[in-house]
């Protein structure tokens, strides 16, 4: 079920607070889009239009912002997101094996979401934690020094 694209009164109060914080209210666009993604799961065209209305912007302006940044999801994502760094240091220390293990364990390609909606798997550019390479981000958390066993342990913790 797609949640209704509308903020609660509490969330709207937060939008107004954010808009009042900056010298120009448009600067609150990224934080408000982050709020929208938390509230609605992803940022649909409908959500872009809704947010545009809160800023008196054209939906096209919001769309160009949403599509510019990697952390905004335009399609429903899994309950958990695993982002494996595949940049240079992680590549040198085995990122490809980590990705191969994850695609096998999860049965999805990089960029895909498991059919049960549990995990979205991504390959991403440097997360700036090269000292713990190979590493990944699972939701809010960084996990490094990855081995097959460690990756399996991470997967077990995800519901």
């Amino acid at each position: 079920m797609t949640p209704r694209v509308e903020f609660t009164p509490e969330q709207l109060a937060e939008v107004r607070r954010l808009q009042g914080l900056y010298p120009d209210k448009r600067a609150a666009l990224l934080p408000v889009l982050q709020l929208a993604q938390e509230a609605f799961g992803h940022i649909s065209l409908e959500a872009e239009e809704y947010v545009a209305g809160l800023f008196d912007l054209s939906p096209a302006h919001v769309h160009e912002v949403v599509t510019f940044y990697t952390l905004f999801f335009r399609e429903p994502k899994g309950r958990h997101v695993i982002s494996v760094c595949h940049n240079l240091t992680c590549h040198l220390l085995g990122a490809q094996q980590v990705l191969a293990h994850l695609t096998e364990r999860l049965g999805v390609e990089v960029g895909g979401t498991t059919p049960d909606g549990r995990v979205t798997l991504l390959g991403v550019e440097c997360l700036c934690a090269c000292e713990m390479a190979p590493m990944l981000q699972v939701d809010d958390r960084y996990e490094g020094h990855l081995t097959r066993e460690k990756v399996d342990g991470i997967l077990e913790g995800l519901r």
Partner: protein
Amino acid sequence: MAEKILTRNFHLPGSHTLAVYRETGGYAGLETAFATKPADITEEVKKANLRGLGGAGFPTGVKWGFLPKGRPGPIYLVINADEGEPGTFKDRYLLERDPHALIEGMIISGYAIGAHLAFVYVRGEYVQPWRIFSGAVEEAYAAGLLGRNIRGSGFDLDVIVHRGAGAYICGEETGLISSLEGRKGWPKLKPPFPAIRGAFGAPTIVNNVETICHVPHIVRRGAEWFASVGTKTQGGTRLYSLSGHVERPGVYELPVSVTLRELVYEHAGGVPHGRRLKAVVPGGSSAALLTADEIDVTMDVDGLKNAGTMAGSAGVIVMDETVSIPEALMVVARFYAHESCGQCTPCREATGWIYKMARRIVEGKGRKEDLDTILDVARRGAGTTICAFFDGAVGPYISYIEKFRHEFEALIRK
């Protein structure tokens, strides 16, 4: 052992708290600062030879000096915590382990440049660093260290912690400003420089986290002391991020006069498994590659510039003899293709095509002319774009091919 300045508290439990920061002399720089004229602090920072530690290495005090004098209206201080240069992770450590050092630096820097509102732009992926830093800002407000009339000085400073949303280009200062304003992170043509017309159209100083963390120490201990640590043209220590094929990857704080060889072998413990060193990226992925026999260079801005590469963000990536340089170039080229913001044609087109060529070379489908095409496109594109992103990509494109051409040719002949 060289004295640790920025990392001196990293090992202490609770180093991110106000209590521990204060116990170790934190916020003591404020008194000295508030008893000094703002313009004199800028002079001290100039004399200290503090250079921007985000990547460009520009003298910090000189940057501050570009602000228009006596013009009415606000001035903003923006802290670039959008750490993203591959191979770099030191600002993450500062945000998590010593956030009050950044806040103290911001108060003093804000006072020096006349800013009463500061933004800290933290990359979106840095959730934990953002939480810890935001907690420190709350603590500082509660203790009267931020807000109105800080410590009875009459100086006001508010801090807004702003989260990015995933885009390397927002680490470029004008791209960061666009993003902070609620737009896609497209860099802007300079001039006007941000010091003249920056965030929200107002004069703005954008400085890296580590740069600002040095300011309280300069104020407390003097420009001469700071300048004496380091080289003739760059004062102080710097946080080197060591990763890749080294025994002990991590953050190392050392005077900028340290050599790359010392960093790799003495501090990070050398190359594991008894393997030989092949090459080192000395300053984040945008720095030109150095071969194993080019590492007797000092790690200051000018030392690496003279060696034909750059100090950049001080992210040192070490590669042993097992590494395929064409494969490494493919990985780096994919990064630049992915992160090009698409605004300028030479960068948008070249990063995409060079990645495709690097990839087909690795896949054994390379064409004889590919190497010269990459070099030609890289050289023609350098300096033709709005920001330094493409110039940064040119560093690896050219150096990987020129220094290891035989490895590429072997793959093409196959």
